[in-house]
């Protein structure tokens, strides 16, 4: 953080100004993902084995540089393009050529949502890097941690700037693997190993759908792209082509053979499967809570702010295609809404601070999803709202996690019931956490209020009252469980010894907290709809009181209940729990989804597919081979008995042979 880098416009240094102006950054936008990549390679290969400390700084510096570039790009982009923010591809090259007119390129797509995400990713990533210097201090895997973080940052940025679906898929997988590596960072802990495997496999399973979706889109993209009368430019895989009306018009005509089901629905549901996996939508949500086994900064970066929103981003990116199929959109909306409720309910019962945050993330992701699901191409308010929420959520959720991290760092404990009374011992952390909690609860003027408001408005005015109702309920629940952990953690008395001796985090960790807190406050005031919209630029609307009031009431109600139950006498809560009995237990056990999955994989797939196959291979297929060998050997062993040693028997065969040959010849010629 050398000050020389900070001033980007008004510094006296001419060359710097020249290098860092918008035009330059736009032309070289590839630098934004490339810097972390280069840093990843250098740190991973050369620096890490030598100096852990240096690797941390180099990694952080690289991401910082990216962040700076991203901010410049964003500032320039949103400022410059007055008449609609065009999608630009300032740089691309052919990467993978399948055949004539069908290749995947790598490139950088600059359009509002990608710029938005670049800013979010680089900023949060930088702050998390910074935070981690403190948080991971003294850890054996310090260098490794930063290597992985860099890898993740690169992958995520690559995903964000992907101009075509193949690059999207590529980076999609890469973020998956970085997530895997980071969840399993404490690889000696069996639970971390299990969690990282689970995360990877579940998302991989989801990616199967994405992959098949890509195949379908690729095929039809190619067919229509090269078909008669096509005037398309670029490549069939490009989002620009896939979302173009020319393509969608033809694609939506393709039938599957099942009445009422068009192929576009199938394809988009499959793609959505990928998105749902990455964004941990029900029923693929199970990996995310376990992913909290990773270091907390990772949870903040990957499992709260950035990677998990990739699914939302994908849906947003392909929104016109989704929108071309009403059924697909219904799926998106339905799954999103259900997940937001489902996760919020579970979130109310969890004791692990990070798990609560994880369920909260699930719930918020569901919000973003259904916001997309309730939009249409023409009524795209939800689209904007979703992106807005993504934007704000990134900050306050990262803040929550980092705050939780600071707490955990201080207490060395994840269980909220062992904390308590930390407000005084960790004032900065407390303050920032409070801001974040207010924000997520949707209290004016914090950022969450604005975005949540827009989402609810979009649901309501998009004609989805049920979803609106769900959203409202979720808003209340969110406020409740967030304040629940807030009260338990920071209020009251220390419930264990360690909590009693907790200290405030070091400065390097506090700086990100403060910055994020600031962002959580101000980001709500960004005139978001100015920048991110679909189709025509919508007229600017202020705060919609019809939605804002119920939303805020729900939030306040949630806070109040939480206060009632947890701020003072803990007995109230336990009494309630006792009243709820079985259903509480079901909720607390996350409706047994983990168990179901384990049952299905271990007891069904392994026991009834894999094990029989292994058995079949050894005993039937291989047995067949051995049987052939056995038959050969046995026939040899039997035939040797023809060789009796009796010379007269040999003679008899001899003479019989004559007769036999005579017979054959006779048959043939007579």
């Amino acid at each position, binding site marked *: 953080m050398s000050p020389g880098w900070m001033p980007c416009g008004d510094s006296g240094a001419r060359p710097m100004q020249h290098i860092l102006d918008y035009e330059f950054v736009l032309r070289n936008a590839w630098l934004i993902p490339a810097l972390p990549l280069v840093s990843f390679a250098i740190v991973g290969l050369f620096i890490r084995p030598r100096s852990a400390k240096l690797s941390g700084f180099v990694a952080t510096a690289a991401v910082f540089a990216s962040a700076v570039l991203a901010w410049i790009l964003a500032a320039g982009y949103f400022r410059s393009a007055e008449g609609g923010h065009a999608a630009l591809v300032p740089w691309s090259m052919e990467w*993978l050529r399948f055949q004539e007119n069908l290749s995947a390129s790598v490139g950088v797509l600059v359009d509002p949502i990608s710029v938005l995400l670049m800013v979010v990713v680089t900023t949060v990533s930088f702050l998390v890097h910074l935070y981690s210097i403190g948080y991971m201090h003294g850890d054996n895997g310090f260098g490794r941690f930063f290597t992985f973080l860099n890898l993740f940052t690169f992958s995520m940025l690559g995903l964000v700037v992907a101009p075509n679906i193949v690059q999207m898929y590529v980076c999609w997988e890469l973020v998956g693997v970085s997530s895997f590596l980071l969840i399993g960072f404490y690889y000696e802990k069996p639970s971390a190993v299990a969690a990282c495997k689970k995360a990877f496999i579940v998302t991989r399973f989801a990616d199967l759908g994405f992959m098949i979706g890509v195949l379908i889109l690729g095929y039809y993209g190619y067919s229509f792209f090269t078909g008669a009368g096509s005037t398309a430019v670029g490549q069939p895989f490009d989002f620009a082509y896939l979302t173009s009306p020319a393509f969608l018009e033809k694609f939506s005509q393709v039938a599957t053979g099942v009445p009422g089901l068009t192929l576009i629905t199938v394809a988009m549901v499959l793609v959505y499967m990928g998105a749902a996996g990455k964004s941990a939508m029900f029923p693929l949500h199970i990996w995310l809570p376990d992913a909290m086994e990773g270091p907390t900064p990772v949870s903040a970066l990957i499992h709260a702010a950035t990677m998990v929103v990739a699914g939302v981003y994908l849906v947003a990116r392909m929104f016109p295609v989704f929108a071309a199929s009403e059924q697909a959109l219904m799926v998106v909306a339905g799954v999103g809404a259900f997940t937001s409720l489902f996760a919020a309910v579970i979130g109310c019962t969890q004791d692990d601070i990070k798990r609560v945050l994880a369920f909260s993330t699930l719930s918020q992701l569901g919000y973003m999803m259904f916001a997309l699901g309730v939009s249409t191409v023409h009524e795209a308010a939800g689209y904007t709202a979703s992106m807005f929420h993504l934007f704000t959520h990134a900050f306050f959720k990262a803040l929550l996690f980092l705050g939780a991290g600071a707490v955990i760092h201080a207490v060395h404990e994840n269980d909220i019931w062992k904390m308590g009374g930390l407000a005084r011992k960790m004032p900065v952390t407390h303050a920032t956490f409070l801001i974040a909690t207010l924000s997520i609860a949707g209290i004016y003027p914090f950022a969450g209020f604005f975005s949540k408001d827009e989402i609810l408005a979009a649901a309501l005015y998009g004609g989805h009252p049920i979803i609106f109702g769900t959203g409202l309920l979720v808003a209340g629940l969110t406020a409740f469980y967030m304040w629940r952990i807030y009260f338990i953690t920071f209020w009251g008395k220390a419930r264990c010894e360690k909590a009693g001796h907790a200290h405030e985090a070091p400065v390097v960790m506090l700086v990100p907290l403060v910055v994020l807190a600031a962002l959580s406050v101000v980001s709500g005031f960004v005139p978001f709809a100015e920048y991110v919209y679909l189709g025509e630029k919508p007229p600017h609307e202020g705060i919609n009181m019809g939605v804002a009031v119920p939303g805020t009431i729900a939030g306040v109600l949630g806070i109040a209940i939480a206060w009632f139950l947890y701020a003072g006498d803990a007995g109230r809560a336990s009494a309630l729990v006792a009243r709820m009995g079985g259903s509480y237990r079901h909720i607390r056990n996350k409706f047994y989804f983990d168990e179901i999955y384990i049952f299905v994989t271990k007891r069904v797939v*392994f026991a009834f597919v894999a094990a029989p196959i292994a058995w079949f291979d050894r005993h039937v297929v291989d047995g067949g081979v051995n049987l052939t060998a056995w038959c050969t050997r046995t026939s040899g062993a039997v035939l040797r008995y023809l060789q009796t040693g009796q010379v007269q028997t040999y003679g008899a065969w001899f003479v019989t042979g004559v007769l036999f040959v005579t017979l054959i010849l006779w048959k043939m010629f007579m």
Partner: protein
Amino acid sequence: MGLVSWLILLPFITAMAVVLMPERLKHLIRWIAALGTGAHLLLTTVVTVEFWKLASADAASMGTARFTKLYLVEQVPWFKSLGISYLVGLDGISLCMVILTSIIIFTGVMASWTVKERGREFFALLLTLVTGVFGVFVSFDLFLFFVFYEIAVLPMYLLIGVWGTGPKEYSAMKLTLMLMAGSALILVGILALYHMSGLHTFDLMQLATVNYPVGFQKWVFPVVFIGFGVLGALYPFHTWSPDGHASAPTAVSMLHAGVLMKLGGYGALRIAVYLMPEGAKEWGLFFMGLTTINILYGSFGAIMQKDLKYFTAYSSVSHCGFVLFGVATLNLIGMKGAVIQMFSHGIMTGLFFGLIGMVYGRTHTRMIPEMGGLGKVMPWLTVTFFIGGLASLGLPGLSGFVAEIHVFLGGFFGNPWHSITAMRVLTILATMSIVVTAVYVLRGLGKVFMGPIEDKHFLELTDATIPEKISTGILVATLVVVGMAPWLIVNLVEPAVMPIVNRLNGMP
């Protein structure tokens, strides 16, 4: 003598040099082997550059006519009376395979640095085997091809039988006999093709101008395809592979899974499909079905394995299924994918087996449940193993993805001769293996390298030695380079696959 002949000769000369050394000079023997294979790697580089120059000059001037052209051709009549000649040359596919082999053998020699017993014979046989492999990849005369093909297969018997572990005689015998039975089928096919053509030549390129009768192709194609399929681990002829790989010593497993199994796919593409397009059209879907079974069956089979080598062997069955699957799609993308998969899987599985050997050399066990937490004591091996594992589950950025996306896309795009629905269903089934692969790779590697240390003795183990680092480093670098810059291999392979595609489409 041209460059391509040297590609074949160099390992052979090295083998002879090794044989002539006195047995007790163990260091000298392996240094000779290392130098010989290292020199081969250099030679391969030279050949690649040469090829590249010629090919790009042609690409500019010749247009599509260059597709059927071979480079660096050497032709010497051999058995003139039967039209047999020593005809070697290179096209993109061959070059690709030569590069692969060159890398694998060099790293294989590096990985066998610690072979103690009867090192002279070991390296001599290994190099003889590899002579055969190079021969197969560069020969364009069917007779010559077959000659090298068998040379490549047979030394395996001794290599496994003498230096192997476990039920080595059984495995070696099974492997040899099954592969030889496969080559018996190939022989039938080759002779039938030769006589039916009436051209009195074994020159592949000339035979490829013949339009064989459809009825003839209908029966010869499956014979030849299955013949190669045995080596390519086509279900249900794959069972030599788990046992063989499990019993073989490290370098042999590397070479076998890495290169030899590719001969199957190579032959199936080069000979079966290229010469008998009508037969391919007749049987393509059938073999797609079989290879789909391969893909899924191999990956499901791998889940249950306890022994790291069996584990990798089943994974090879699955991955080699992709090769033959790609071949059976009969379109440009799929077949290109098959070739890339050959390359990618070769490197990847070579890496796997090399690493297994290194781990086994330290822990003296290959049983997955007995290991754990090795990542702490052997970070280098862990990282490389994970990169290999990620490549095998098709992680983008590593070569496996490039191949698999081609194969899937190829299968999905279908071809004019088969039911596209059926092809798509099979492709989607095949796609599922990416999940299963993730499951077994992560389960396996997770158990071995992550988690708590199972055995206190493991704490005393050491990380990779310098030769081991060189060996694994090269392989990993190849995986990454191909994965990050796929155009390198794609541009090499595409022109070489074009003639096959054209022939399928009835174009000259």
